[in-house]
Structure formats: C-alpha cells, structure tokens
C-alpha cells in the first residue's frame, strides 16, 4: 500500500513556503480588496522562518516536526492567520506523533483533525468564505479516496487541487462572515477569498513539484501558482 513519508511531507512544506513567500504581496493585495491587506505579509513572515529553519529542525517523527512548525507559525504569523494556521499544524501533529510514514487513511485523518481544529478555533463553517471552503471538501475527498483503498496518490493530489481551485470561483459571490473581511459586509461579495486562493495555489504547486499534471482554472490561482 502507498504511504506518505516524513520526507514527502517535509518537501511539501518547503514547496508551500516557496508558494507563500513568492506571493507575499499578491496575497496581501487580494486581502486588501475586502480585508485589511495583511494576509500575504503575515503568512510570508512565518514561512520565511520555516524555509530557513526546516532543514535544521529535529525530525524524529512527523508529529514532532509539525508541532515545531506550529510553534513557528504561532510565534511569527499575526492576524487571524496566526491562530488558524498554527492550529492547523498543531492539530495535524497530534495523530502523527511518533510516525514517520502515514497510510492515506492516516493522512486523511490528520488533515481532518487539522480542519476540525481550525473550525473549532475560529468558529467558521462551510460557506463562511474562509479557507475552510477549500479545506473541508479537500478533507472529504481524501477520506473518500482512503476508503476506496486507492494507491494512486497522484490522482488523489490532482483531485484535491481541483476541488480547492473550484472553491475560489464557487465562493466568489459569497459574503465573508469571519475575519476582517467580514467587517465590510456586502462589500466582500465579488472578491475572491485570499485564504482559499492560497490553499488552491499551494495544492497546484504541490502537483507541479510532484510531477502531477494540473492546470488551475481560477484566474487568481493561475496567477499565483509558479
């Protein structure tokens, strides 16, 4: 059965750091449309530290590595993204404690735990126009694939990237209910949510890094992915 190794996850994190750092000003610009324009900078500040520290940090197991990343994010990322992404990493760390390889079922459970943690942390639901509108369907898709017993991880990744990509356009018309963008009420309709764009871009970049062929549809994801 196909497993996902510590090393694969580490490379995924590194790719994520590249995505976030490259899009520092673009993600902030997107946040500026309806929010307070700090999303790109906040996230990049944390991922610059991750990019630098990742090679050196102790990695006895996946959980330990993710917990360390959680601490870095909590320490260096401001705004809502600090608690949200920090919580994501922390909650992902718990079920992967002591493990250096994850089955797809375990990986899906890990992501599911992170998603639950983010929902509990910020109180957002599906449809509130936050990154959860990408993460929740991705998490469901992962569970589905895990249940099917598939070994084709490339197909799984492609599916996830596609679902997140779709969420950008599907949520564009919604009004934000959480985070600073919620303060402008109706004015947030017709702007893409930067958090969803970020998730979709990260997944698109993961496809590329892993040789999986996927061309994003949403204009913002096309622009943001390498």
């Amino acid at each position: 059965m196909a497993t996902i190794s510590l090393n694969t996850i580490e490379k995924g994190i590194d790719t994520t750091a590249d995505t976030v750092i490259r899009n520092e000003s673009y993600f902030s610009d997107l946040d500026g449309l309806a929010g307070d324009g700090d999303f790109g900078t906040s996230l990049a500040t944390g991922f610059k530290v991750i990019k630098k520290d990742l090679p050196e940090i102790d990695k006895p197991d996946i959980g330990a590595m993710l917990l360390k990343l959680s601490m870095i994010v909590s320490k260096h990322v401001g705004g809502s993204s600090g608690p949200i992404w920090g919580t994501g990493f922390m909650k992902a760390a718990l079920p992967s404690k002591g493990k250096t390889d994850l089955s797809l079922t375990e990986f899906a459970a890990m992501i599911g735990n992170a998603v639950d943690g983010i929902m509990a942390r910020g109180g957002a639901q599906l449809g509130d126009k936050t990154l959860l509108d990408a993460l929740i369907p991705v998490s469901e898709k992962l569970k589905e694939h895990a249940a099917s017993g598939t070994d084709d991880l490339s197909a799984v990744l492609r599916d996830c990237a596609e679902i997140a990509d779709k969420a950008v356009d599907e949520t564009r018309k919604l009004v934000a209910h959480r985070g600073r963008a919620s303060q402008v009420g109706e004015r947030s309709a017709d702007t893409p949510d930067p958090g969803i764009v970020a998730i979709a871009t990260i997944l698109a970049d993961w496809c590329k890094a892993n040789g999986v062929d996927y061309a994003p549809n949403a204009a913002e994801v096309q622009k943001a992915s390498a």
Partner: protein
Amino acid sequence: MKKFVNKPEDFVPEFMAGVLAANPDLLEGDLEFQMVKRKDRPVDNKVSIVQGSGSGHEPAHVMAVGPGMLDGACQGPVFAAPPVDACYETIKALATPAGVLVLVNNYQGDRMAWDTAVELAQAEDIKVEQFWINDDVAVKDSLYTVGRRGVAGNFFVMKACGAAAEEGKSLEEVMAIAEKVNNNVRTMGVALTSCIPPAKGTPIFDIADDEMEVGVGIHGEPGRERAKITNADDITKTLFDAVADDLPFNDGDRVALMVNGLGGTPPAELYVLYNKAAKLCEERGLTIARNYVGEYCTSLEMAGASITMLKLDADLEKYLDAPAETATRIF
C-alpha cells in the same frame, strides 16, 4: 493627527515602556512580547490572573496589573489581538502550580489567539484555563465578535478574580467567581466622536456633528443606532435602561455602578452622567454599594462613555472592597 505619537509602529512599545518606567517597583516586562507582569509574581501557591487584548483601551490591560488585580498582561497592536506567542509567553511567565486563569474579552481575534496559546501551554503541562467575558448588551452579535462583546465589565471580573486569587482560592474557585461576575454584569456605551488609530491616521468611522453612536463597541463597531445627540440625562437613561433591563436588576439589589470614559471625555462630564445614573438607581430601588467614575476601558481618544452595572452578593462585595493596586494611580 492630533495625537502624541512618534513612529506609529512604536506607539504600543513606547507607551508600555512608559508604563514600566513609571512603575519600577511594581512591574517588569518583556517588550519583545508586549508583556507586563508583577515583579513579585508568580508564586507557587497563588493562581495567576492574566489578560491580553488589543491596545488602545488603556488602562485595560497592561495598566491593570498589580496586587489584587492582574498578575500579567500582554497587548496586541492598537485594536488587534496580541499574537499567539505573546499570549503563550505571558501564560508561561505567570505559570504556577496553582494555575493560570486567562480572562479573555469576547472578540474572535482574542479568543483565537488565547485559545491557541492555552492549548500550546497545556500541551507543555502548564495548568491554565480561560474565561470569556461578554458584558456588552448593545448587540447580540456584531462585526469582530462571536456573541456579545467584552467591554468595561472586564474591570469587575479582573477585580473579583484578583481578590479571590489573593485570598488563596483555587483555579476552579476563581473561575467560578469569573463566571458569577460575568453573569451579573452588564454594560452599554455611547460614542460622540470617532478615534484615530495611530497607524491608520484617519478616524475609524464617520459621524456627523450632531450625531452619536448608541451601543458603540470599543473599537468603534456599530451599536444599536445612530441617533441625534440629546442631553446628558436622556443619554444616561438610554444606556442605564438597556443595562438595567437586560439582567434584569431588581428592586432591593445592591449594585456596583461604573461610569467609564472612552478617552476623550473629561472628568466633569462623567460626573454629570453619574449624577443621573445614581438617581435612576434610586428610582429602581437599587442601592449603590460601590461606584467607579473614570477611565477603565477606553477607545483611544474617542469622546463617549459607557455605563456598567454589577449585581452584588456578599461575596462579590467583599472582593470589590479588597485592597488592590495598579499602574494607574493618583498619588
């Protein structure tokens, strides 16, 4: 900008440095985390009370540190939650075997930051709990918030928990007191002007010369209505009735009554409001056991005020009467 500011990004660390410089015997701090703590705390056998939220509400929060009040506090940027690591380091700095109680004003940003920090600390076996304060009756749910907002009633939660902790009460007991105060305290405010966050440089909302925002939040969030400014007595009655009807407070109750200035309103005007509020208490048969007139929870230089009322029992009255000391003092 009619403000005393150097570089806007230095505003918070500089005022905090001023607070530390003015209280060298009482306080020490770690400005990397915008944190201030009692010099003589933590101690093993006492629950630590901590708090932290956006800046611009002084004396809340770092200026409320002292014997019988907070053991420590950290501040975020103006009107923004403190970063998780500041919250985490504050918990760690005040950690004791008796435990830490974090009093969180009910705003999404603050809740998320403290929630995360508390979990991080718990993961390291630090004994810590949090309690959410939500005394603002103005709106059930609003921008920035998840349920009712925590505003000036905050002071009474800190005061009672601070006194109870000083008495040696356990973490669970102190939490129960926080809950009792929160269940019995109500606040509503009104703004006559907006305020200018230094980094923004412009007012956070527009308001006409003859208008007031009734039920305003301490970050300028909209309240119940935008109305024409009326006279002091009418405004007091609007705020007071909203507060008194909400619990409700009943004939015969003993209460603590606070008239809190939002930053730009001078002392004399607050006493004009107090004068009317005291009469309204009398009309309802409420006995004012203790009163508070001044600045407890501000919104930068906003002209405005809020009225807070706490229903007392013998226990709470004892805790309010207990001695306390903070960075804010007269002599």
